[in-house]
């Protein structure tokens, strides 16, 4: 009996250790991203993802770093490579978490990145898909501030293209701000980014 207890306590210790390692690793990865070494951040997220198994978050962030990085580069081949890799990460994330609104939002951003870099090729092919992803995400989580904010930005972009007033979507941004304030999550490292983008999106409302 005693042996069992000892073993059990050791196992708990191991789990706590793994949990601590996860938190340390994730924190470190975010630091790497903030200190402008995105590729190191991606590598670390990928290592964590592979070690963790069954956890969608490290895959999700590995994809996000790739996607965000493409906004700052010009080389077509590198953009395509990164977006393809990001899609693979998101596919992995999806296998561990089905019907996940956050992954859908990230996938919408990924497709937006394709459209942004080559509108004439990817615009017609992917616009409907981006729209559908945001709608699906909002159906799952009507109060998700990222879904609301980025969907509004996407709609404003297309309103500008069609010569309509993008300000029609400004109330949506107000809604997003409200939901950002209320956002809470028990899961560590659950996505909560986006609040600092509100100002940028709001520029079209002036």
């Amino acid at each position, binding site marked *: 009996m005693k042996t069992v207890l000892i073993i059990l306590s050791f196992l708990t210790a191991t789990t706590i250790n793994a949990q601590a390692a996860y938190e340390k690793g994730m924190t470190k990865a975010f630091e790497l991203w903030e200190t402008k070494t995105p590729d190191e951040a991606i590598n670390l997220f990928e*290592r964590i993802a592979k070690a963790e198994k069954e956890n969608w978050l490290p895959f999700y962030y590995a994809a996000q770093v790739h996607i965000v990085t493409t906004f700052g580069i010009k080389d077509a081949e590198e953009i395509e490579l990164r977006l393809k890799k990001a899609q693979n990460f998101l596919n992995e994330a999806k296998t561990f978490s089905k019907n996940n609104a956050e992954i859908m939002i990230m996938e919408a951003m990924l497709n937006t990145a394709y459209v942004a870099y080559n509108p004439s090729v990817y615009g017609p092919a992917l616009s409907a898909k981006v729209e559908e992803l945001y709608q699906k995400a909002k159906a799952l989580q009507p109060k998700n501030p990222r879904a609301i904010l980025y969907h509004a930005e996407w709609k404003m972009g297309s309103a500008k293209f*069609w010569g309509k007033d993008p300000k029609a979507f400004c109330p949506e941004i107000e809604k997003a701000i409200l939901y950002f304030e209320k956002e809470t999550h028990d899961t560590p490292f659950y996505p909560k980014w986006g609040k600092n983008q509100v100002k940028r999106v709001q520029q079209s409302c002036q």
Partner: protein
Amino acid sequence: MKSKLTIALLLLVYNLSGQINITGKVTDKKGIPIIGANVYLEGTYDGSSSDETGSFSFTTSETGQQNFIVSFLSFETYTLNKDVSEMKNLNVILKEDVNSLGSVVLNAGSFSAGDNSKASVLTPLDIVTTAGSAGDYIAALQTLPGTSNASEDGRLFVRGGDANETNIYIDGLRVFQPFLATTNNIPTRGRFSPFLFKGTNFSTGGYSAEFGDALSSVLQLNTIDEPDQEKTDLQFINVGLGGGNTQKWDNSSLSVNAFYINLKPYQGLIEQRVKWITPYESLSGETVYRHKFSNDGLLKVYGGLNYANFELIQDDINTTEGVNFGLKNRNLYLNASYKGNLKNDWDIATGASFANDENDIKIDDTTVDDTENSFHFKLKLRKRFSNQFKLSFGAEQFLNTFSEKAEIPSIDTFNTTYDNHSTAVFTEANIFFSKKLALQVGVRGVHNTLLNYSKISPRTSLAYKTTSKSQISLAYGDFYQAPQQDVLKYNSMLEPEKSSHYILNYLYQDNGRTFRAEGYYKSYKSLIKFDTEIPEFGSNFNNNGDGYAAGLDIFWRDNKSIKNLEYWASYSYLDTERDYKNYPNRATPNFAAKHNLSLVTKYWIKDWKSLISTTYNFSSGRPYNDPNESVFQNQKTRTFNAVNFSWAYLISQQKILYFSVSNALDFNNVFNYQYSNTPDANGNFSRRAIRPNADQFFILGFFWTISDNKTDNQLDNL
């Protein structure tokens, strides 16, 4: 005591006496350091990224055998299983991933349009926004090099081959009657609505061993795997109306559409050169069901039904009152395909297609009723041994039964039937020697039970990447094709016709600009000859015909140089002669002009919310035969010129107003001449020019898409 021992053991495992340092260097095959590769022990947090010199170093508390992994974009992941204590000064050489972007592509002979193909020169959207195509998937392909402009026919004439030498496949399965039924000099169009397809591969020669029974060309159309959204499409045009609806569920979707065409009101307004008794009328319906299985396998089922009916009087030099021709056609086409992954890197693609085609034809007082049933089954398996080596093989069965009853009053009733079945097997290996050099070798064997022949045809292609933006490729292949229906009706003792292709291709792609040049030589052997004007009961047939085609195809496309303007230009030079049908000697057929040129432009005017497309087509004079001359087929028509124009105006995001006119500048074009069978009193054969039924064709339409998300529209179908 026992517990103490356990604790001791656990401590030993847990505390892992100290840390081990893992070190090494990552380079590519040439020894150039790879910076930023992800280096780690599988299943642990222990790892690092390689630095500027490719070196890495990290510590681990793991012991014993572990999987050491190195991964990096566009390289294959490296795995090493070893005891961690031996992981010192590792020399990791990463292999380039030949599946990644920037790899060489086996593309000799083919044009791809699709999002995923690396050698795409066109997008699916391009195909259908081309002016002059009027929503016909096939018409847009006629602006690509290698095709001959034969706008009185509407089908694809590739590199000196006639229209029967091109076969069309949907999702890998044969389409038996891809074109709407029509008659001489009334251009046909593809039966299928363009919005069903997501990608196209148009091969003008040297295609894979997977495809047979075509001497010149194979067109593969792939249907959409998963529609983007639920929607309803409505189309109102001056020659008909249509509608479609798409529904989506978790793992499946269903699309249906129907279209009705009636040319009567149009032909009442615009003068025609033929006299229509019953103007062209057709009703068609299509449905596609798609289901994705939990193992990622994809099933697609397509069904299409089409009725067409028309009657007209065609001018004929030999009868003053003309020839009365009437046709009623009913065509049913079913196609079911499945694609999926099996265990151990095996892929499967299988499916079957079936077509039932019935024609009631009336030529003056002769009536012809024919029925054709065709069936195709295909099974293809592919094993991926590594990224460098893949092997595929498969088998196909074709069944084709034809029966015809021709009643010629005052003569007799003739019944003709035949069963033309064939079985084929094929295998093909894809070998990537490196990211720069790839080879495909295949062979196909076919046995035909009607004509009782067996043939083996080798196929091969090789591609080499010369720089990061350019590559050259070569292809060679032998191709056999059974005689067509008009011959098989009367003779089943013939051999198949044969062609051999030799192709050299150069491709340059740079961020929105594509240059492609392809030279080829094609030899024809065993072409079918007969000794009457058209194949008929009592004609003597033989396989003694032959011929060749040689040429150069140039394609240039530029999306970057001028803002909002996309354009491409194609030029084809064609030198061909053949001795076939009832030709007295080798000569250039009427459909093969020496020079063909197309210039396609698409200009987006943001302020007008309009897409303006123009297409200019030019062909040098087409050969024709003048019986007043002693040399066969030595005359040439005047050159062909046409400027097609279309304007799509987006009223709102989902409503489009569309206008198009073919031959906007009203060039006077002549395709051929028909000479009288008998000379006049002076010994001259008189003639009649074969010209379009109308010099111009106008389309005015309104396209409305209704969907929840309000972004999609039908621009890509125009």
